[in-house]
């Protein structure tokens, strides 16, 4: 959900970006991080923890904590809270550690 009215900040309407979450088409906006675009679309479970496989989402939002790592265009362990969204990105939930080989 986007903030529409704010007493201090102005959020201008930006160019739309089409991307895919688990093969489902979604809309984000230029300047979004992947995490912000997913949250705007109501997707808050971004990964599952390594041992207990519990749902995890954004915790720190500045690239410190690795709670939000996802598979982006086939590349695992991308911190989506700081990763800029690009046209056509294919984003998938990650379960535990990503395979790099």
């Amino acid at each position, binding site marked *: 959900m986007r903030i529409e009215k704010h007493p201090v900040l102005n959020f201008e309407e930006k160019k739309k970006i089409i991307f895919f979450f688990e093969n489902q088409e979604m809309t984000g906006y230029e300047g979004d991080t992947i995490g912000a675009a997913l949250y705007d679309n109501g997707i808050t479970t971004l990964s599952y923890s390594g041992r207990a496989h519990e749902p995890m989402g954004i915790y720190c*939002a500045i690239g410190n904590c690795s709670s939000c790592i996802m598979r982006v265009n086939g590349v695992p362990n991308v911190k989506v809270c700081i990763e800029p969204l690009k046209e056509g990105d294919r984003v998938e939930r990650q379960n535990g550690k990503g395979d790099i080989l």
Partner: protein
Amino acid sequence: MKHVDILIVGGGPAGMAAAITASKYGKTVMLVERDGHLGGQLVKQTHMFFGSEKQQASVRGFDIAKGMVEEIEAIDHIEILKKTTIVGMFEDGVVMAQQREGYFKIKPQAIIVATGAYEKSLAFKGNTLPGVYGAGAVQTLMNLQGIKPGQEVVMVGAGNIGLIVSYQLMQAGVKVNAIVDAAPSIGGYVVHAAKVRRMGVPIYTRYTVKQALGESKVSGAILCQLDDHYQEIEGTEVEVDCDILCVSVGLSPLSELLWQLSCDMTFVGVLGGYVPRVDERNETSVAGVFVAGDVSGIEEASSAMVEGYLTGLHVNEYLGVKEEGLSSLIEEYEEDLRALRSGPVGDKIRQGIAQAKR
């Protein structure tokens, strides 16, 4: 291998300030920032700052950042490297940097580490559920990315960050159901607490969070009362609705690079954890490695900036610069820092800094 006079790690308030003064007498400066933009956490601070006019009181945090970025970009012997992470610092003074394309080495004459801090967390059941955030995270989501993180929040921690972020959540249209703090009294400034109370937000001291409820995301929280020894009192549990549980229990210095370099470190609770032992010039036990800002002890952005300005000048002195006016400028910033840390509010900080002296 890239050669530079002064390498600054971190483009937040301390690092930016350090870059400005470090470059003042012609030394080449490389300012490295892991994020895609300079400004650190200033860019999401929508509130006006306190302090004196010189420290830009009454200016909003993001406007302070904007002004500093413009100043830095106009100085041509500062090289700015964004989306670049320093991943290694070695005994021979070589520093390893990482970009998406790969790694490269840097050989500076002196280094200022200004990596800032990270948010502490709390151990409670359900603390990894989506909807549990650090307080800084909801600030980033709201004030930088324009995303409303939910409808109703419980804030854990009534320090300045907890109080300010609660107010900012209300500005974004989120209802603040409660602010709780384990301590017997509110840690933040009275003005901030009064502001949220006036808007009808209850603040409960001697309370903490016991559990975050919900299957795939937060749907509520169980709070409970604490005794004089911060132990949970059985039977005092209350369930509160919320879809955001914000943890604002302080910050710790982000000091991995200093550990890697085997800097002499010491635990100072009031400064947020392990901090480097420094001399009066902010130089660590490793020659030529200086620190500025929260990495040397948690304070706030105003003192981080002054510390940055000051350390940039100290490094010039360390590198043998003997310009007229350098020492009087240093004295001026030292006086500013003393003023910021004066009075009863600065008591703990002054004690902490004394403990970390080498």
